[in-house]
């Protein structure tokens, strides 16, 4: 049980690019509403339609909304930066397209979603 939880993080960390390693701390407060809004805009354009669903619910990946404290910001940052190979789908790496600051804004939005109340309907 412990092994399955640690292994993905370990694999991800060992494959990080130099840029990702250097920027793995948020350069601003993740609760900043302006940053959250910027992240929302980016999420809806780049992440929502086919994969994660608008408001982070209903896509092929587990819901972000109301998931609580299990979304580690650094893990989220690293996954967005480097991409991830899933079972039915592949998340492309966004590190080449967005700056670390822009990716942290995405993380700020995901953290905001994680602590929202669940929707009544989907």
């Amino acid at each position, binding site marked *: 049980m412990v092994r399955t939880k640690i292994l993905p993080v370990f694999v991800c960390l060992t494959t990080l690019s130099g840029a990702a390693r250097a920027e793995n701390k948020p350069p601003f407060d993740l609760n900043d509403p302006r940053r959250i809004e910027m992240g929302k805009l980016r999420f809806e354009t780049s992440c929502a339609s086919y994969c994660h669903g608008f408001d982070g619910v209903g896509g092929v990946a587990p819901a972000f909304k109301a998931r609580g404290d299990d979304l580690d910001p650094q893990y989220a940052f690293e996954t967005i930066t480097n991409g991830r*190979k899933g079972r039915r*789908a592949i998340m492309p790496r966004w590190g080449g*397209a967005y700056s670390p600051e822009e990716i942290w804004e995405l993380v700020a939005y995901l953290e905001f979603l994680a602590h929202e109340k669940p929707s009544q309907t989907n």
Partner: protein
Amino acid sequence: MMIEFTSRRRRIALALLTVSAGLGVASATRAETVKDMGMAQPNDWPQYHRTGAAWRYSPLDQINQSNVKNLKVAWIAQPGDISKGLQATPIEVDGVLYYIGPYNRVFALDGATGQIIWQYQPKLDPISDQSFYSATSRGITVGRGKVFIGSLDGRFIALDQKTGKELWSRQLVDLKTTYGSVFSSPPQLAGDVLFGGTTGGDQPTRQKIYAVNADTGVPVWTFDTIKDDPKSWPGKSGDVGGGAAWLPGTYDETTDTIYIGIGNASPDFYGADREGDNKYTSSVLAIDPKTGKLKWARQEIPHDVWDYGAPYEAVLLPTGDQKTLVHLNKAGFVFVMNKDNGKLENVWKLVDAQNTIKAIDPKTGELIGRNEPVVGETKLLCPWLLGGRSWNHGAYSPQTGYWYTNTMEACNTVTSKKDDPSSLKAMSALSLGAADLVTKAPPGGKPLGRLVAVDPLTGAKKWSVDYDIPALGTVLATAGGLVVNGDVEGVIHFYSAKSGKEVWNFNAGSGIRGGLISYSVKGKQYIAVPTGLGSAAVGFMASAFPKVNTLPAGAALVVFALP
């Protein structure tokens, strides 16, 4: 001495020469009629849609309604990678089955045993991993002694059909400047011309159809699917107008014509910057393969603002004067036209959940009662952006005269919005022109999928089968009176082509997204089913059909035969 052949003589001579050289060309003689074309090479599945008529009908009848219950698994092939599932249609010629798995890995197998003859993995540019469509491989093409690939890093590649050794590779698309537009579908042969378009219906770029000499890889023409006409595309709107020909075209050898469907306009749901008809998006085109010149075009959805492209198959019917072409678009309307000039003969509606276009005039093709997205206003639009059907093709049986196709009854709400350029920096970004986009059930109903058997000329329904989740596989019809359709849960259903009664099924364990085929080796008929659920559509469907997220991924080619 140089001899000038007429175009017809040239083709026949070339075919005979190639056959005599033992290069294994798919067809040695040219069909004179659509019926001849659709029934050619009955033992094989030599092309993506089996023939240029796009029937996906096998003339083999050894497996029939009476004995189908005795089918056994003859062999299984696995590509070794399940990324985005197995989406391809295999090709079978002269007892050898060719298929492509994730990341363009190609296999040639003994069609009777599944034993690997050769395999090939192109060394893909790592940039292809940044494309929205990475890993997606929908097929290969076999002919002229070669196996052709459209690659995930923007190339056409030719392999030796016997050995799998690379013969030539031609870079045609720069992923960096086209938002990761890749060849997810196999380029097709039209004589000695190899042609195809890239995927990327939602990419803010100007899409093209590329054609090369099939023997050398040297480019022969490029067709710009964005018409150079300010009335169609004001200002520079065409430069980001989309119009991808992202599915395989077909070749009508009776008239030496390419048919190819064109995808949606971009940005998908925001049309204010591209007022005009936006030709040739959402159209079917007839192109001269030698020159790349347009013979005729039929735009089905002018000024598309719903993501209703028309990249689907052009089905040629063997009935009447054998001049009828039937063509579905994502709006869920079927256009019936003359295949030689595009003249409209009828338009009929395939799906029930349609609230964006009230009707289409069957004589003029005019869209009546457009219900368009409005900037800043959330509107319910049916069908949803996956269309009244996804790209999984239908099948036509000349035995019954019915066309069989899967459909989707589902909607989405969309709030139209101009894209923020800062959010379109990523190679995999989609230019949807929407602030939000949420899947919804049709008004008064629930979202569902349906396999329908219809009269392709009128749309008159003959029978239908409902599925809780839309099926995403391509339909197969056979002369054994069977229609075969795989669902997303992995069950392969065998139906009576005439009545729709299910006569047998088999659970393969993971959903079907690829193309089913049938072929014969040494007198024994096989039915090959690519299984393994994947693709972007699966992700989008999950919000309307939550069970999708519980379905296992996979990738296995399951081949059946009688004992």
